[in-house]
């Protein structure tokens, strides 16, 4: 029992149950920069590592955008702490800030959809999105509560 754990036993049990839906591997890429936001980056990294222990389909990579420049650049992440969620391909899913509360369930849901590659969207929506001729950047601002 780790006294400093962020996730409670109840959280872990709930997430493990959710992770029964995982089918393919998912990589969580954590962006940390000690000099910019040390405490937040450490908490974020710890949270991601705790989540990753809940399924053997999850792996974690930590990048410092200022040091691992070549590795970090393609992600176009301009804030820390941040997380990229990758499955069969680099889906372009990013989280800026520590995902807690609502954003935590959003992260778990994103891991599941990245793993299955099966978005819960109507056939019409999927067809429209696949026909896009331009890049689309969606930012969703939210708060923990």
């Amino acid at each position, binding site marked *: 029992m780790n006294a400093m754990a962020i996730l409670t036993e109840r959280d872990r049990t709930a997430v493990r149950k959710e992770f029964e839906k995982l089918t393919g591997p998912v990589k969580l890429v954590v962006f940390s920069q000690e000099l910019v936001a040390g405490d*937040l980056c450490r908490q974020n990294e710890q949270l991601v590592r705790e989540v990753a222990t809940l399924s053997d389909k999850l792996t974690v990579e930590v990048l410092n955008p200022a040091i691992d420049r070549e590795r970090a650049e393609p992600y176009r992440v301009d*804030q820390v702490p941040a997380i990229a*969620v990758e*499955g069969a*391909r680099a*889906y*372009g*899913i*990013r*989280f*800026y*800030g*520590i*995902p*807690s509360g609502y*954003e935590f369930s*959003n*992260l778990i*849901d*994103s891991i599941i*959809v*990245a793993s299955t*590659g*099966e*978005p*819960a*969207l*109507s056939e019409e*929506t*999927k067809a*429209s*999105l*696949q026909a*896009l*001729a*331009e*890049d*689309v*950047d*969606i*930012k*969703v*601002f*939210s*708060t*923990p509560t």
Partner: protein
Amino acid sequence: MRLAQHMAVASERVRATAIEATEFPELSRAYQVMGVPKVVINDRVQFEGAVPEQDFLGAVLQAVAPA
């Protein structure tokens, strides 16, 4: 707002970033975040609050439509 992440999985064209507004006050100010969730698409179309899938898709299509 989980639709954005699902859309990112559905299309290589779509990128979805979930931003913790309180941790990034400057970014939130820049995008005039007053209420959450607030969605901004291609820095061009924006709306507040949860919307049905069809409306979200409509906003995406509006964001790539010719001006």
